[in-house]
């Protein structure tokens, strides 16, 4: 393979530096890729497709015709980050999640940050994700978001920014783990040249985190994964994590809340007490008694059990209040307020349509900005200004004027790129990174995370539901090289 025609234009490329030269941490990889013929590289690609099919790594896409299990689109060229840089990012993530947990605890308790007018009160109390049922709750260790998935991007200078924090039911970690398995099968040679930090302790860290927040100390707390079931797009991940943790994978109908307010699962030996529920169901479907009465996915009385401290729900109901893209705007202020520290990781510049001056700016510059609904996940409902039509902009402007609270805007970032195998040649494609942060007795950050890549040329949308794929992410130790 050659990189003669490889041109990442004005964006920052993860592997190829200015003048088409490999960045230091990518030298070995690029040298290796250069030594392969097109046919050999294609062979690796086919081996990876086969591995993915055999391993059955799938996700579910919903279309008008119904749902289908689709093979996870995976690009075989890894994305590499030097360990020294990563350690700094990981510190920044820990700081951020610590502040976010303190924020959620505060919002459902004394609301000091609102009283001190750091964040406008209405913005929080009127948030769609604020749960009055959670007011006054004190979860074990006062941790609310046990699992957080933050999305990171790089700008054209290579600086890392936080795009958003997902604190409801962030997904993707199973693909991060499976991607590494696939890469090990197809590029075993490279693992000799590099010291690539392992990632596969995530399931055991997840289990330890969940076990550490059990309502009562127990030697073997019963941890379960609660899934909405087979028709959920992330069912593969639910089953995968349950299997890897050695936890039961349960559905709502497998659990009951008994008269003693404890949660039990129905087993062939009778009822068995459940201590911690890693729930992959949205708040509103958790408990038909407390929320959506039509929900068949949830467990009647679950919220009662939680609020009486009989069971831990991870993440805690109401966590989503910090997941809102409008709240994300205030995270640097939270860090200063709760931790008296300067934020290590900056936010992507964000305009709140709620604020008049910022809204006016957004409405005037719709063709240059990316507008996002404050509460949607999966890239739905976005407007990418430079690629939009006049009609789309007009419709968006109307929506912003109607419900300004529901929209934020960000400059069109030229997300960084990395070489990606497209039709048998290497082309730059935009990508982001989703690390996962675990908070329990200890805090842990995944080594790297899930790199998502927009496979369509020029596209900035990396979501798998919108034509995105993923790459293995290597954190490499460069000391002594």
């Amino acid at each position, binding site marked *: 393979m050659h990189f003669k025609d490889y041109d990442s234009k004005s964006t920052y490329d993860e592997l190829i530096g200015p003048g088409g030269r490999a960045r230091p941490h990518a030298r070995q990889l690029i040298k290796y890729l250069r030594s392969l013929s097109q046919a050999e590289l294609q062979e690796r690609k086919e081996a990876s497709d086969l591995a993915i099919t055999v391993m*059955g790594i799938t996700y579910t896409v919903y279309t008008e015709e119904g749902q289908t299990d689709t093979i996870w689109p995976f690009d075989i060229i890894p994305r590499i980050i030097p360990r020294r840089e990563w350690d700094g990012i990981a510190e920044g993530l820990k700081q951020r999640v610590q502040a976010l947990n303190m924020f959620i605890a505060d919002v459902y308790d004394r609301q000091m940050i609102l009283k001190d007018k750091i964040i406008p009160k209405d913005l929080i109390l009127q948030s769609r994700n604020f749960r009055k049922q959670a007011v006054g709750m004190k979860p074990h260790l006062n941790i609310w978001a046990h699992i957080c998935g933050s999305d990171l991007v790089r700008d054209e200078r290579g600086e890392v920014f936080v795009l958003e924090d997902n604190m409801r039911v962030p997904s993707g970690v199973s693909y991060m783990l499976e991607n590494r398995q696939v890469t090990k099968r197809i590029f075993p040679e490279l693992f000799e040249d590099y010291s690539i930090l392992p990632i596969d302790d995530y399931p055991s860290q997840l289990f330890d985190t969940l076990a550490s927040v059990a309502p009562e100390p127990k030697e073997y707390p019963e941890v379960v994964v609660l899934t909405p*079931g*087979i028709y959920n797009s992330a069912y593969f991940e639910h*089953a995968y994590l*349950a*299997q890897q943790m050695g936890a*039961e*994978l*349960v*559905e709502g*109908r*497998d659990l*009951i809340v*008994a*008269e003693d307010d404890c949660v*039990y*699962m*129905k*087993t*062939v*030996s*009778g*009822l068995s007490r459940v201590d911690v529920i890693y729930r992959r169901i949205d708040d509103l479907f958790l408990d038909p008694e407390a929320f959506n009465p039509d929900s068949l996915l949830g467990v009647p009385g679950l919220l009662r059990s939680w609020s009486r401290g009989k069971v831990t729900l991870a993440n805690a109901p109401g966590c989503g209040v910090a997941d809102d893209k409008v709240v994300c705007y205030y995270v640097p202020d939270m860090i200063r307020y709760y931790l008296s520290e300067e934020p290590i990781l900056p936010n992507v510049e964000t305009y709140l349509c709620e604020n008049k001056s910022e809204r006016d700016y957004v409405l005037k510059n719709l063709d240059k900005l990316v507008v996002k609904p404050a509460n949607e996940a999966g890239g739905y409902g976005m407007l990418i200004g430079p690629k939009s039509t006049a009609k789309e902009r007009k419709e968006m402007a109307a929506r912003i004027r109607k419900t300004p609270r529901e929209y934020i805007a960000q400059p069109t970032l030229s997300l960084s790129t990395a070489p990606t195998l497209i039709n048998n040649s290497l082309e730059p494609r935009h990508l982001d990174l989703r690390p996962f942060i675990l908070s329990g007795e200890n805090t842990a950050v995944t080594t790297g995370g899930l790199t998502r890549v927009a496979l369509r040329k020029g596209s900035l949308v990396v979501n798998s539901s919108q034509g995105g794929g993923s790459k293995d992410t290597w954190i490499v130790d460069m000391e002594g090289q």
Partner: protein
Amino acid sequence: MLSRVAQQLYWFARYIERAEDMARMINVHTNLLLDLPRQHEFGWDSLLEITGSDELFNELYDEADERNVIRFLISDKANPGSIQSCLFFARENLRTTRDIIPREAWELVNDMNLFLKNNMPSGLSRRRRWGFMKNVIGGSHQITGLLASTMNHDAGYDFLRLGRNLERADMTTRIVDVRSADLLLEHDVLTPYENIQWMSVLKSLTAYQMYRQHVKMRVRGPQVLKFLLQSESFPRSFTHCLQQVHQCLETLPGNDSLLRQVLSLRRNIKEADMDKYAQAGSGLHDYIDQLQAQLAELHTLITARYFSLDVSHVKMEKTAES
């Protein structure tokens, strides 16, 4: 083990076994009809009788001819016992137990469903039917073998075996019942064919060769009944299936009432006088009805005990635990 998962494994095994039994029966029946004289009245409706689906069939079809009966038993989605429906339900049951069952089993069940979808016309045509059924039977064997050799032999496996053996025991009694009813009547025209009919009873259960080895005498009614109902070594005999059920239940928790039921069934079959039942008018049909009722009762007990946890019963146990 979660009750839901146990229940799904149990039903998965029942549906796979049911599909296999159906395929086997259709094959043998197709063969038998080729051997019998043209004018006799022994037709396709006996298959409906065995599966207890004559009522549903009569609602859906006018005439019980080969074409209709075969379509109904193989591909009719309106018939919950058709091969197509059985494999569909088997797949649905496996869907949410994918974390317990080896992946390959899931792939095999998918393959079987795909095969059915693509080859349905072969099943309907008399000429290619044999190969079609062979595939269904082979698929079922493959799944059973795969699970036996790759899955933990724990509670989950016990529920699979429970389902398979109860279904098999049930099917054996049904085949014996319907087929012997014809045989025990006085049929002048059929007398020369009595031997091949008893042979076909054995063949429906793939028991012919094993019977020969075991019994070492010509195929006669009482011996066939003894073999199919009382043999301890033939894996499709009623007694053998119950032994398997017994073994599974012994390892499962809270099994008192269940073990009592199995023991009473086993005693019942052991003490039955097959020489008597092989005579016309001796009440074989009523006796088999009784066995089937006891089997159904056993299924109900298993369901109540392990699958649909009755909360009042459960509360008591919980207090006992804490």
